[in-house]
């Protein structure tokens, strides 16, 4: 039973001082955060299960930040309705 679109949404809140709060971090979002801040140990440990394909994507995103705006390349189908 696939979740609906709403269930696949991660909530990001950026506080006035730049802190980022995330609720319901998806695989895609963790890959993105790992790309943005590879030194964050908490993110790194959570991104570890993503394995090589996602780690490579994160590396590519770091090399080509504009890809963040174009959308992350997909390894497989994301859950949709």
């Amino acid at each position, binding site marked *: *039973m*696939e*979740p609906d679109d*709403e*269930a*696949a949404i991660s909530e990001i*809140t950026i*506080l*006035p*001082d730049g*802190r980022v*709060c*995330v*609720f*319901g*971090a*998806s*695989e895609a*979002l*963790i890959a993105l955060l790992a790309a943005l801040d590879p030194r964050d140990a*908490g993110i790194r*440990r*959570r*991104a*570890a*299960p993503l394995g090589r394909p996602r780690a490579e994507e994160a590396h590519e995103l770091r090399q080509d930040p504009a890809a963040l705006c174009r959308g992350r390349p997909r390894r497989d189908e994301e*859950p949709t309705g």
Partner: protein
Amino acid sequence: MLPGSPFTPERLVRARRQYRRCTLCEHRCGVDRAGGQRGACGAGGRARVYRHRIEYGEEPELVPSHLFYLSGCNMRCAYCIGEADAFDPSRGRVLSAPFFREAVAWGQAREARNVQWVGGEPTIHLPAVLGVLAACRPPVPLVWKSNFYGTEESWDLLDGCIDVYVADFKFGNDACARRIARVENYLAVVTRNLGLVAQRARLIVRHLLMPGHFDCCYRPVVAWMRKYLPTVPISVRDGYLPRWKASEYPELAALLERDAGRRARALARDCGLEVIS
């Protein structure tokens, strides 16, 4: 039923009986939920899932985790990030064996490491959850994330069925619990339950830091753990947001101090605790 299965008919019958005279949590309402009466949580005889998805924001040892969010709760935490979904037990689709079986298969295809029950509060739906677990037997570890306000009867019903418990140890004193979450006798109940569960399965204690509650809530939580559960890991959460009704409480309407997470983790480490996030 598989040999050695914890989901014995006796256990399921004992659990279902709770819907006739509910004492699943320490509100001990004693109401006939199956017959239409409602207690403090407002839940009836059916559990509903308002969301299920795979998440990576849980404790690192648990991710990717397939979370099943059950609607309805026995607490009324003013800052709840689940907001109306968490408190209204009529939200979501009915938790049935066919739905759960399919949902678990979906999660397995995406390499979820476990199935995690969250809320709201799953304890108020314990008979329904045991029912679908008995019917489907998911081939992954089971995680129970709870506010730990359940009764000893509830923990006995879960004993042997759950692999990892994640306890939201929210308040360090009864006054804050009463004022913010509208529950009585909080500390005695939660610490009793933590002591019980720590002997039975893997336990992780989680604490969401709240603005203005470092001394009255966080410090006592750490002090208690240092004394009574020094080997249980603590997960410090510093992603507090002033959501739901937090604006009605002056200190909860604020953001968390910028270095609160760092300070909190340092304190826990100084007390000899294992800080896992």
